[in-house]
């Protein structure tokens, strides 16, 4: 089946630093692709390139068959590729409902329709009890759900999740992992940056490993976890063997 | 003058809209000292700097401190409020008419090689360089100075190493204000000043600081030289009343072309 997202040889440098080097990957319409690598490996830069916040110096990005290089972020979102941010960015003075409604408005021009859709999504992520709370007053775990809800409200076909588990405790992580699985099961492809190995192993159909801006390994979770180059990249860091999908 | 502004921005990330109006007060203070106490501004600038230092610290402690973490709109509005108060207090206290300070040096002139130089301007120029250099030394050599630079680079990190950030902020604002107070005093024999002049001085400061780079001291210094030259050229080729047009047009162009300036860091 044709990939939903096809990235071919993108590169990006900042002054003297080559942040991403000749990166290629693809995501199928219903899979979860995990993107891992040590800090500074270029993962968030890759996300910025894919979502239009940065332009690649070289290379091609095709989403649903069409090139999205050079498109502004809002256009890419409307095509169905939506991202979340590593450090969550809620609209602090707006309520949870109004936050998510902004996402819904990208698909529904009428305010009532957008509101209704927002409520649905809020229930889906489990924030139903906090609908009218100000986003600024939520806990971190709740803000992560909010970030997810907002992105979901844009009715994406591919969701870019940037370290959505960061800063959460094990119980919260389990809950988010379950939520992400549900989202994927509903037909949305996911590209996931994550440091929590247990979560990555549990969620991903395939995993790509970045180091110094380059992809060094790609494959099934179990294969990747045992790959010597991956172990080398992470040398000195712990990783957890977890059952693959 | 610009050095003060850039110091405040560099350390606190707060833009001081009241900068020009503070300078006007510096000028008026110098005038007061000259007319009431007979102190020449070239000596009295120290007093002006001191008064403005204290004012700066007070403003910072009372007002700015509370909004250091607030959204930028709030900071801008706050300083705008301060500017309004300062400008109109000057208006009320001193009246709207332009003033000048008499200094015995004003009339003196010198031949410096082939160039005919006005002593007053020369002294101002030299003193400005000396003060800037002194400030530079202060920032490089003293503990407080180094702490300020640390706070400018990384406020959180500075907190971690135990720097009293609030004190640093107060000092930065105070010194920034002192600079501008001194600048005002030094310039008072040369330029006529009036309360409404605060805005054009602020604009001039912003012009300089943006060109040189916000938060960079050498940038402010070089920017100052550049902008002065540009404005002088403008005054030569265009009518005097259009000189202001030049500085505003310059500001627009600068804003569009290089908001980060020659040496500066980009705005938050």
């Amino acid at each position: 089946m044709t990939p939903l997202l096809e990235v071919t040889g993108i590169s990006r440098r900042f002054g003297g630093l080559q942040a991403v080097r000749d990166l290629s990957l693809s995501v199928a319409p219903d899979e979860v692709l995990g993107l891992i690598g040590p800090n500074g490996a270029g993962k968030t830069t890759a996300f910025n390139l894919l979502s239009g916040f940065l332009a690649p110096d070289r290379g091609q990005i095709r989403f649903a068959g069409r090139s999205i290089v050079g498109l502004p972020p809002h256009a890419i979102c409307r095509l169905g590729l939506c991202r979340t941010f590593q450090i969550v960015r809620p609209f602090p003075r707006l309520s949870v409902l109004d936050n998510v409604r902004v996402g819904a408005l990208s698909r529904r021009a009428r305010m009532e329709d957008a509101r209704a859709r927002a409520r649905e999504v809020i229930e889906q992520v489990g924030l139903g009890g906090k609908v009218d709370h100000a986003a600024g007053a939520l806990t971190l775990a709740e803000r992560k759900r909010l970030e997810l809800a907002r992105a979901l409200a844009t009715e994406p076909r591919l969701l870019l999740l940037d370290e959505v588990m960061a800063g959460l405790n094990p119980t919260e992580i389990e809950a988010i992992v379950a939520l992400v699985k549900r989202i994927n099961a509903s037909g949305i492809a996911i590209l996931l940056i994550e440091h929590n190995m247990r979560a990555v192993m549990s969620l991903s159909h395939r995993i790509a490993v970045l180091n110094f801006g380059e992809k060094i390994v790609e494959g099934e979770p179990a294969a990747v976890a045992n790959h010597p180059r991956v172990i080398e990249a992470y040398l000195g860091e712990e990783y957890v063997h977890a059952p693959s999908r | 003058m610009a050095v003060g502004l850039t110091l405040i921005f560099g350390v606190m990330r707060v833009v001081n809209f009241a900068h020009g109006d503070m300078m006007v007060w510096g000028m008026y203070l110098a005038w007061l000292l000259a007319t009431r106490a007979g102190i020449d501004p070239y000596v009295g600038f120290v007093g002006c700097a001191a008064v403005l230092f204290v004012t700066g610290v007070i403003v910072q402690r009372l007002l700015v401190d509370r909004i250091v973490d607030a959204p930028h709109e709030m900071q801008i509005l706050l300083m705008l409020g301060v500017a309004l108060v300062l400008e109109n207090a000057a208006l009320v206290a001193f009246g709207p008419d332009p003033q000048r300070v008499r200094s015995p040096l004003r009339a003196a002139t010198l031949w410096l090689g082939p160039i005919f130089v006005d002593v007053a301007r020369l002294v101002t120029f030299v003193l400005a360089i000396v003060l800037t250099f002194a400030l530079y030394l202060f920032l490089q050599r003293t503990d407080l100075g180094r702490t300020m630079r640390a706070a400018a680079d990384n406020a959180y990190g500075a907190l971690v190493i135990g720097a009293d950030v609030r004190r640093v902020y107060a000092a930065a604002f105070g010194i920034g204000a002192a600079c501008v107070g001194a600048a005002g005093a030094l310039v008072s024999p040369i330029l006529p000043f009036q309360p409404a002049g605060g805005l054009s001085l602020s604009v001039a400061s912003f012009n300089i600081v943006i060109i040189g780079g916000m938060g960079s001291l050498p940038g402010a210094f070089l920017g100052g030289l550049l902008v002065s030259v540009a404005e002088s050229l403008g005054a030569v080729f265009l009518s005097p009343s259009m000189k202001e047009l030049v500085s505003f047009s310059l500001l627009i162009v600068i804003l569009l072309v290089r908001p980060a300036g020659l040496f500066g860091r980009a705005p938050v």
Partner: protein
Amino acid sequence: MKWLAAAALAVLLALPAVLSSYAVTVFIFIFFYAFLGQAWNIVGGYAGQLSAGHAAFVGLGAYASALLSAEVGLTPWIGMLVGGVLSAALGTVVGYLGFRFGLRGFYFVLLTVAFAEVCRIVALNTDAVGGALGYYITFTGNPRQFQFQDNRVYYYVALGLMLMATLVVAAIERRRFGAYLIAIREDEGACEALGVNTFRYKMLAMVVSSFLTGVGGTFYAFYLFSLQPNAVFGIPLSVEIIIRPIVGGAGTVLGPILGSFILSPLAEVARVYFGQGGWSGVHLIAYGILLIAVVLFLPQGAYPALRRLWARPAAR
């Protein structure tokens, strides 16, 4: 809430019958500045793009309609729209330059101030429009020339303008346009990631805001009959425009109106008691202090604070 607004409206409509001419004038200024503040509110309050140069649009609209009326005989009722369009054009330029070049916060403020000052200086130096002496309109009292013998007609025109602008803002707030503007004010980057074309919506806000402000310029011209570049393009006017929404509640429908009702009387009192001679700047000092106080203690303005107070006794 609705009945309260209707009652207030009824009172305002009936007032001229009982007020002295002086009081009517005070109200005219309350309404007029509320109108200008409401127009600014769209781009400054809702979208969060602080423009401190809105006087440029007032001036442009004022000079345009005044000149068209005097030189070409075009009735200001149409000249008003021309002025609005011209101001919208200037607004487009300023907005385009600001937003395309990514000027945020303080840099954008500087840009708007710079444009307003450029307008002021150009007008000061252009003898064709009166230069430093200003441009004067001869009073004819002819309604077709947007001039009225009776102060009270101006009262209703100003009230009408204020209501019109308020309805526009209320309509914006109810729709996607308003929701997007508020979100843009909170976090533009996050908006972009959610499919909001922030550039387009900021521009739209700027255009609407500047158009309305330009229309207001016509009222200014044909109520005051004299256009002085320093007054009509100057910073003090821009301050008058922005302080009402800010004190009353930026980004709310009623904020600018509340702000105007607070500030105009205040300014009037200051002017009456201190207005002679060198004390003419006192009301601006009061503005400055109020601005500082609002930022420190009531950052969202008076209206949201009042609304909270109102809601508390009614809370379950």
